[in-house]
C-alpha cells in the first residue's frame, strides 16, 4: 500500500489507523512492517494518537463507564476578545488625535503662567515694576503693557531717524492730538449757495506758524476766522476779508480746527496739526 493511502490530509488514513488499532488489540505492539512515515507520524501527532487510544480502549472494554465529558463550545469569546482589542486601539488613536488638535489650537494650554495663582501673578508683576522703575530716569512707569523685550543686535541707524539703541515703547496718542468727533463730521464746505473752495491749509497738514489761510473767492463783506483746539475751545478769532489771512499767533503742538463764518452761518471747517516748529518747516 502506498504512503499516500496511509497518510491523508496530514493525518493517518482510516485504514492506517485501523491497522494500528488492530495490531495493538491483538499483539499489544505496533507492527514493525508498517511504514516508517506512519509510525513517525503517530509518534508526533496527538490527534491521531487520541483516535487510536479511543478506539482501542473501547474495543478492549466496551462496557467501561466512559471517556472525558463533553461541553458546548463558547465560540463568541474569541470574537469579542478581538473586537475589544480593535475598539481599544481605535479609542486610543482617537484620544491622541483629539489631544494633538486641542493643543495645536490652544497653545496657551502649555503656558505655565496660565496656571499660576493671582498672588503669584501679582508678585511677579511687582517685581517687573520694580525693575522698570530702576531702569526709567524719571522713575515713572511709561506703560503698563510692555511687550516682552528681546535681545537684538544694534541696528545701523537709518538717515533722519533717531539713533539706534533706543528702545521704543508703544505709547498712547497725546490728548492734544485726539480728534473731535463733532468737528470731524463738520470738516469741509458748508456754504448753502455753493462750494467754498479753500486753497490753504490742506486738511490734516502739519503746520507751523505763521499759517497762511486762503480761499478762492474773496469775501466782500467781513467774515470771521476762528481757530479752535480739539476740544472746540476758541483760541483765536479774527475778522477776515478778501481771499486770504496770515495767522502769526502761537500755537502749541497738537491738533486744531479752523472755521470760517459769516454773520449767520458756518461756512467752512478745516483741520491741521501743529508739530515741532522749526525755521525750515514750510507751510503747506
Amino acid at each position, binding site marked *: 500500500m502506498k504512503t499516500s493511502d496511509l497518510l491523508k490530509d496530514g493525518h493517518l488514513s482510516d485504514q492506517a489507523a485501523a*491497522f494500528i488499532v488492530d*495490531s495493538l488489540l491483538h499483539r499489544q505492539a505496533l507492527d514493525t512492517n508498517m511504514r516508517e512515515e506512519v509510525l513517525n507520524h503517530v*509518534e508526533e501527532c496527538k490527534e491521531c494518537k487520541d483516535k487510536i487510544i479511543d478506539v482501542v480502549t473501547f474495543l478492549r472494554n466496551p462496557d*467501561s463507564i466512559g471517556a*472525558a465529558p463533553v461541553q458546548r463550545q463558547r465560540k463568541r469569546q474569541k470574537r469579542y476578545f478581538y473586537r475589544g482589542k480593535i475598539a481599544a486601539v481605535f479609542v486610543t488613536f482617537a484620544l491622541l488625535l483629539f489631544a494633538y488638535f486641542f493643543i495645536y489650537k490652544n497653545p496657551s494650554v502649555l503656558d505655565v503662567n496660565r496656571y499660576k495663582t493671582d498672588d503669584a501673578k501679582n508678585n511677579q508683576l511687582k517685581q517687573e515694576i520694580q525693575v522698570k522703575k530702576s531702569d526709567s530716569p524719571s522713575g515713572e512707569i511709561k506703560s503698563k503693557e510692555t511687550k516682552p523685550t528681546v535681545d537684538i543686535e544694534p541696528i545701523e541707524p537709518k538717515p533722519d531717524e533717531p539713533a539706534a539703541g533706543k528702545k521704543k515703547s508703544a505709547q498712547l496718542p497725546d490728548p492734544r492730538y485726539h480728534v473731535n468727533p463733532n468737528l470731524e463730521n463738520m470738516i469741509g464746505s458748508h456754504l448753502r449757495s455753493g462750494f467754498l473752495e479753500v486753497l490753504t491749509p490742506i486738511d490734516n497738514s502739519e503746520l507751523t506758524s505763521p499759517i497762511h489761510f486762503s480761499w478762492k473767492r474773496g469775501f466782500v463783506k467781513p467774515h470771521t476766522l476762528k481757530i479752535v483746539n480739539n476740544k472746540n475751545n476758541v483760541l483765536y478769532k479774527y475778522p477776515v476779508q478778501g481771499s486770504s489771512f496770515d495767522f502769526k499767533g502761537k500755537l502749541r503742538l497738537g491738533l486744531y480746527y479752523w472755521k470760517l463764518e459769516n454773520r449767520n452761518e458756518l461756512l467752512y471747517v478745516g483741520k491741521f496739526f501743529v508739530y515741532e516748529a522749526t525755521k525750515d518747516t514750510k507751510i503747506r
Partner: protein
Amino acid sequence: MKKATDLDIKFDKNRSVVLYTIRHHLYPEEEFSLKLFPDLPSVLLNCFMEVIKSREELLEVYQKSGDKSKIESLTREILVFKNLLENHPKTVVLMYRTSVKKYIRYQHSNSDEWEDIFQEVITRLISGKIYRIKEKFDFTYKYDNLIKRSFFTSYFMVTVRNIYMDILRELKVRPLTAGEIQPITGNDALETFKDENMLNSLVIDEEFQKLQTVLTLYHRSRPKLDLCLKLKCRIPLTGEIIHRCFPACSREDVKILVQDFKGVKDKKMFDMVAPVFNRHEGRENKSDTIRKWVSVKMDEITSHLNRTHRCKVYTGKNLVDFMTLYYEHLDLNEIKSDR
C-alpha cells in the same frame, strides 16, 4: 399432515445449521464477542432468510434439502463477510448497531444527547458511509497475519469515531481536554464511585493496558522514554534497558546510569546523566533540556490517560506512582514469562 411436519423439522434443522455456521465458522465469538455483537446471529439469520425467500431455487434447496453441507455452503455463500458487505451493506450496519450504540454511550456518557447522536450516526452510515466503506476497504491487502475479520471491526469503529467527531463539531460540542476535566476530590470521589461499574472500570490491569497502549505509540522514542521514565520514577535500571536505548554504551556510562538516585533531586540527577545522553546522541544538550523533554512526555501521557476517564484521574504527581507500579508489574511479568 406428515409432510408439513417433515418440512417443519427440516426447516428447524436447517435453521440451526445456519446458526451454527454463523457462530462457529463465519463469525466466531472470539472475533465477534457477545459484548459487541449480542444480536449478530438473529440479524444474519434474518438477512439469510430474506435472500432465500427472494429466490425460489434457493428457497427450495433450503426447504427440501436434508444435506447439512449444502445448507452450510449456502449459508457461507450468502453470509460470508465479503459478500455480505458487497450485497447487503445495511445488514453490516445492523450487525454493528450495538457496538455503535455502546461506543456513543461510552464517548458521550454525561449527556442526554447520546441517543440522538447514535441515531444520527446510524442514519449517516446507512444513507452513505457504509457504501464508501465498502469501496475503500481492501480485502486483498495482507498485513502480516492480520486477521481480516477483526480488522474490519477496527476499521469500522475508526469510521464511526470520525462520524461522531463530525457530529460534535456540527453541534459545537467538544470533549474537554485534560486541563478542563475536574479532578476527583473527597466527596466527589464517593459520589463518583457509587456506581459499581465505575469501580470496575478503574481496575488496575485495564489502566496498565491503557498506559501500555500510550507508550507503544511512542514508537521511535520508546527506548529513551522507558529509560527516562524509569530514572524519573527512581526505578533501578538494568543493562538491557540501557543498551536498548544506547547500544554502544560503555561500562563507565552504564555505571553512571545504574547508580541509585533515590533521595537525589531531579535537577541533580539529570545533571549527572546528561553527559551520557549527549555522548550517545551526539549533542550538547543541557540537563534542563532532557528534564523538560521528560516533563513534556509525562504531560502528554497524563492527557492521553485522562481522556479515557470522566474526571481527571491522573496528575503529574500520581502518574509517577502509577508508572512505578506499571514498571514493577512489567518486570514481574517478564520474570514469569522467562520462567
